[in-house]
Structure formats: structure tokens, C-alpha cells
């Protein structure tokens, strides 16, 4: 006992001069909340780091909370011209007084330009770096990431990290924001049979997007093309399809919704359905998943034949025309109309994926089951066969609730 104690004491004494190598106070670090990558102007890359300014964020600790002009409040951005992503982190220490730390990083923003050139060599290797988190989001922004991050001033909160997190968290309640964070992006990129979709983002567009006031489904919008005034400077909607680390094209809101339906990450959305009886009026419905989509893949003549069935349900939120669709005998009409509308979306999306040659809907994951071993599956070369596959999708929608009203009296 005595000996053991003295051994501990000895160890403690030996250890204490060794010092505390990793000891660092939180106020000795610069917390990077987002990293942006652009094609460089003076070097290979322009890396933009968003660094939180804690004294402006901590309430009551003195200093006014951030609400002032762009970039003056809760964060600052630093753009550095470097060769690689992580060398920027090193260089950052020459610019900032505190040690840059990535462990609270929320967003990796790639400019579309860079993404279309291929970002595989930038993002895949950083998974090796211990500060990097696979739970961060992958964002592709229209325009330069530098500008995007510098102007992306949060409106509701001081903490820019919270802003970023909540922004992407919208995938939970809207179909327009893709689910894939870095982890899913990465595992989808590396496995044959499915392709990732990154979040598409952009700064607010100042000039008008559309010329006329003709009706347009909101799902047709995508980031950078949302007609609006006010709100935050950043908008995220739609997705960027990747294959082998290279961006192939963009998806609009509805297409992202379909992708999420097939990936099982779809939670709910709202559909504006033109009234079958009054084409200028709308019925607004909520759509939720009922079951996981049923996908059957058969291989005939060496090419896949895919049959899928989307099972959805939902509520009526509003009927503009006041037609009493809520009567039991009328409901199937409405359901059929919804199915048709959704099917159009789905078919568009499938066509888009076959056109891009990227199976972001994940039909390949179902095709995998047909094979006995992995080498056989790899030898099939799904990504080559998929664009030529025959895809039949069936949408099954059921109305469950009709909201707080049952039948409406027409306005007199």
C-alpha cells in the first residue's frame, strides 16, 4: 500500500514538470464556425474562415450584442489564399491572435465553381484531421463562398454557429433542404449505388428573378432564385448533385423533396395543388411519408428495371374554392389529383437523375440485394447501367385529416 502510494506520488511528481501540453483556455482559441473554399486568386484556393467573436455574443459580459452592419457583430471572416484547406488553418494563426480551432465548425462551403471542378481532393482527406467533424454540413454556394460567408449575417441570433446549424436543420421540416451532412455525403460518395446531394445555398438575389407574375410552383425555386425582399442574406434551397466528388448539376426544391422521399429522410412538405374543378384556385395539402418507399429492381437483358412505390399520407390544410372535397365520396378525387401532381415531380426527378447519370435516389442500394457478393456487385457497374434503366414509379397518397373545418359554406 505504502509502496503503491509512493509510486503514484513519484509518477505525479514526474508528470507535473512534463507540463500540460494540451491545456488551453477557451478564450485562447479562435473558434471557426464555418470554412469556405473558392478558387484562389493568388493561389490555388481562397479559404474563408468564419470566426466567432465571443465578447459580442456573450450577453451581459459587456459590449453590445451584434446587430450592427455586416460582419461587425458576432463574427469576423478571414480569407486566405493558400494551397490547401488545412494550410489555411495554419496560416490563420499568423493573422489571428488566437489559435484557430475547427472542432466547432458547422459548415463547409464550396463555391459552385470549385464544386464543378471537383472537390473530392479537398474534402475527403480532411476526414483524417482530428478537429474535423463528420457531422458538419456540406454547402455549395452560388457565387464566391468568401462573399457568401462574409455577408451571411444572422438576423435572429448573435451566435453565427447557431445560425448555421439551424439553417441546415430545416431539412427536418421542409423538403427543400437536403439532409446530407458530411458523413452521409461521404459515405454516399464512396459507395456504389447512390450519389450524394449537397445543400445548395446562395446570397439573396437583388435583381428580379422572373419577368411575369404567372403562377409558379414554389418547389421550382432554388437557392439564388427565390424572389423575395428582406430576411437574412443567405438562402438555402435545392441541392447540388455530386458524383465522384464532382458537382454535376443542381436540383430544385421539389426534386430535393423526391430525393429525400427515396432516401427516407423526407419528413413533411406542403403541396399547392390546382383545384381540379377551379384551375385558378388552389388546394393546399400537407404531405408526410406513410411507409418507406417500396423499390423493386429486376435485371433483364443486363439492364435494371425499377418499380417503385411511394406511400404517402397527409392532411388538408386549406381549400381556396370552398368545394367540399372533404366528403368521403370526394376525397379519392383529391387524392388522385395529389398523386398526379407528385408523380410529375417524381418523374421529373428520375429523369433528372438519369440525365445527370447520378443515382441520387438510391435505387442502386436496392439493386445490391440481387447480388451475392460484393465483387459481383461491383462488376455490374451500376452507375453505367442506371441511366438506361426503366423506372416506373407509383405514388399512393391518402388524406388522413381535414384540419379544423369539416365542410365549408361558400362565401355569400
Amino acid at each position, binding site marked *: 500500500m505504502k509502496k503503491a502510494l509512493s509510486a503514484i506520488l513519484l509518477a505525479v511528481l514526474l508528470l507535473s514538470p512534463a507540463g500540460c*501540453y494540451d491545456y488551453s483556455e477557451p478564450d485562447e482559441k479562435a473558434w471557426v464556425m464555418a470554412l469556405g473554399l473558392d478558387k484562389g486568386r493568388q493561389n490555388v484556393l481562397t479559404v474563408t474562415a468564419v470566426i466567432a467573436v465571443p465578447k459580442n455574443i456573450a450577453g451581459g459580459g459587456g459590449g453590445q450584442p451584434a446587430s450592427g452592419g455586416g460582419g461587425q457583430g458576432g463574427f469576423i471572416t478571414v480569407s486566405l489564399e493558400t494551397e490547401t484547406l488545412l494550410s489555411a488553418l495554419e496560416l490563420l494563426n499568423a493573422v489571428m491572435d488566437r489559435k484557430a480551432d475547427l472542432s466547432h465548425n458547422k459548415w463547409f462551403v464550396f463555391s459552385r465553381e470549385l464544386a464543378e471542378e471537383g472537390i473530392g481532393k479537398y474534402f475527403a482527406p480532411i476526414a483524417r484531421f482530428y478537429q474535423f467533424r463528420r457531422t458538419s454540413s456540406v454547402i455549395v454556394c452560388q457565387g464566391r463562398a468568401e462573399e457568401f460567408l462574409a455577408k451571411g449575417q444572422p438576423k435572429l441570433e448573435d451566435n453565427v454557429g447557431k445560425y448555421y446549424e439551424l439553417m441546415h436543420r430545416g431539412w427536418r421540416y421542409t423538403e427543400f433542404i437536403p439532409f446530407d451532412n458530411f458523413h452521409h455525403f461521404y459515405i454516399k460518395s464512396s459507395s456504389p449505388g447512390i450519389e450524394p446531394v449537397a445543400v445548395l445555398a446562395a446570397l439573396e438575389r437583388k435583381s428580379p428573378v422572373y419577368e411575369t407574375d404567372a403562377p409558379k410552383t414554389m418547389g421550382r425555386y432554388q437557392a439564388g432564385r427565390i424572389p423575395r425582399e428582406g430576411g437574412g442574406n443567405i438562402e438555402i434551397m435545392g441541392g447540388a448533385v455530386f458524383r465522384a466528388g464532382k458537382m454535376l448539376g443542381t436540383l430544385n426544391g421539389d426534386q430535393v423533396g423526391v430525393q429525400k422521399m427515396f432516401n427516407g429522410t423526407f419528413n413533411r412538405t406542403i403541396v399547392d395543388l390546382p383545384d381540379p374543378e377551379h384551375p385558378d384556385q388552389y388546394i393546399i395539402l400537407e404531405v408526410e411519408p406513410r411507409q418507406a418507399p417500396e423499390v423493386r429492381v429486376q435485371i433483364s437483358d443486363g439492364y435494371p428495371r425499377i418499380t417503385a412505390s411511394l406511400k404517402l399520407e397527409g392532411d388538408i390544410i386549406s381549400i381556396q374554392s370552398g368545394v367540399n372535397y372533404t366528403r368521403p365520396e370526394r376525397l379519392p378525387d383529391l387524392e388522385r389529383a395529389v398523386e398526379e401532381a407528385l408523380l410529375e415531380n417524381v418523374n421529373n426527378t428520375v429523369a433528372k437523375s438519369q440525365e445527370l447519370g447520378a443515382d441520387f435516389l438510391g435505387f442502386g442500394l436496392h439493386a445490391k440485394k440481387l447480388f451475392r457478393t*460484393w465483387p459481383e456487385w461491383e462488376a455490374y457497374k451500376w452507375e453505367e447501367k442506371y441511366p438506361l434503366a426503366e423506372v416506373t414509379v407509383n405514388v399512393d397518397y391518402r388524406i388522413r385529416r381535414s384540419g379544423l373545418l369539416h365542410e365549408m359554406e361558400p362565401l355569400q
Partner: protein
Amino acid sequence: MMRQQTVIGVSEAVTILFIFISAKTFLSYGRQFFHESYNAAWMVPLVQTFVGLAGVLLLVTLLQKFPGRNLVEIGEELAGPYINGLFALFYLTVFILGAALTLRGVSERVEAGYLPNTPISMVVLFFAVGAVVVGYLGPEAVSRTARFLLGVLLVTTMVLIALTVPLWRFHTLYPLWGSGPLEILKSGLTSSGDFVQILLLGIIYPFLPGGKIKQVGVWGVAIAGFFMFTYIWTSLLVFTYPAVSELALPSFEISRMVNIGRFGQRVEVLFMPVSIFANLIFLSVSLYAAASVLCSLCKLRDYRPFVPAMAVLVQTVAFIPQNVPQLIYWNEAYLSKYSLGALAGILLVLLLITRFKGKGGVIDEKST
């Protein structure tokens, strides 16, 4: 009640046995399975477990013939001091190499994930101090410490697994047979050395309650097999096949993946105790077992002087690998390949001698 001789209860014995076998799941265990069996790697631990069960039954058969004596003493009785010296050297190698690679491995893990700027020697020293102190306190202390911490280990592991369930992607299980059934079987057999730690049973046998050894061995191996399977299964489902084969420390990456809302992320620190405790228990057990082998070999009564000596040896060996890839490679090449085969060979030889001598009626009196 006032008994002061060393006693290890069944539950403590099962605990140290299974922790001793399965502590490697917190290091790079199973890395090669993904390379050999692809997405069917989860079957490999099952194969290993069956091999391990066979091994433990063999060991138990031998031990049960000599109640109250450990494997080294039995070997001495059967094979004579010289041949048994070789055998004991093998046991010693298993314990010391295992401890050294684990010591380095767990320190590198801490280095990789938690304390990147701390010198490796300091981390190693921390682990060594913990292991030496508890190892020095004896098999009772080690097993009870393990038993006491078992709750922490189990709960944390279960929580970790439960938190990753939303990330499970079952499609990765297909194509079902990965690289093919034969390849899987081969992978399981060549890496069966992951269960060589059943050797511990031969060392602590004298302290176990009589007649319970079979129960201890089977349960220990089965639970360890279950955990190794769960571990491979979880990492496979979370990271899916091609990505999972890249990881150096899958269990660490799993804990980094946990994300239950804005508050519940980056929680790998919460799961640090599991890996640290499991490996500290592994190290203490190894140090004690190595000291005990030496002690039996030298026919001394007290193992304790050997514990610090073993610790020094283990530390020295721990620093032989030049880098982490070499460490992982050594572990796969020397420890988890064939070592169970060698152990089984020794056991078979000893059993044969028993049979042979038993006919002559030499052993029977002593063994009964």
C-alpha cells in the same frame, strides 16, 4: 468471511475474461476484416467466437485435470521444466506483446482524438501508472475493479450503440456474402488470435471457484464475442462498407458521429471512459498475468516484484513500433494471426502427455 486468500468470483472472472478479450474493440480491431470480407465483416467475429469457444473448451479440459494449479505449473508437471519454459515464454510473449501494443495503441488513440499535443510518452506513462498500481494490487483488485467499472462500461457502450441507431444503414449488409463465404471463414480463422486472451483463464484458474471454470470460460468468450460482433456490426452499419474500411479507430469515429440535436453532439468525451477503462483493465490484467507466469516459472511465491519489471518491459516494447501504421500491422501480423493456433498446439501437446502419462497412472493420483 475472514478468508484472506485470493478468490475471484464467477462474475468477476467472466468480467475480466471478456474485457481482456474484447478491449481491443476500442483500438483497431477488425480493421482488416473489412478489407478481407468487405461488407460481410460482421460475420467474422462470429467465426472467431466459435473458434474461441473451441479453444476455451480445450483449455478447460486440460485445466480441469489439475485443480488448483495454473497453466505454467501444469505444463511443468507434464512437459518438464525445459519444454514448459518454451511454453511459458509463449504465454509471456502473448501477455507482454499484447500489453505493449495495447498500451501504445490506446495512448495513440488518446493522442489522436483527445490530447493531440501531449507527448506520447506522457500518455503512455499515465496508462502505465494506472495499470501498474492496480496490477500490483493483485488479481482480486483487478477483477473487482473490472467488476465495479463494468456498469460504467456496459451502460456507456449500450448508450453509444443506441445513439447511433438512427445512423444505421441496413443496405450495407447487401450483397450478403461480402467477399464470399470461404473468404469470410478464412478471415475468421486467420484472425482467430484475437481470442488468444483466453489464456488468462489458465493463469487465474487457481483462484476460481472449483467446478465453475467451464462456465467462466464459455461465458467470457461468448460475451466477448458478442461485443466484438456488436462493434463490427455498428461500425459497419454506421459507416457502410467502403467508407468503414478506411477508419483507423472505428469506435472513436462512432462516438464522434453521435448527434442528437444541437446540444448532443461532439460528445466523444463522454465515451472516453469506456475505452480508457477497458484498456486499463486489459493492461492491469496483462501485467499481472505476465508477472504471474514469470512467478510460476521461477517457482516464487509472490508475483508482485515482477509487476513493475513487466511494466518497464511493456513500456519498452510499446515504443518499438516506429509509427501507428506499424503498430496496427504488428498487431494484426503477430498477435491476432495464428497465436490461438499456437496456444491450441501447446494445449494439445499437454493433453496428449496427460493421456500418455495417465495410462501409466502417474498423474491420476495427483490430478484427482
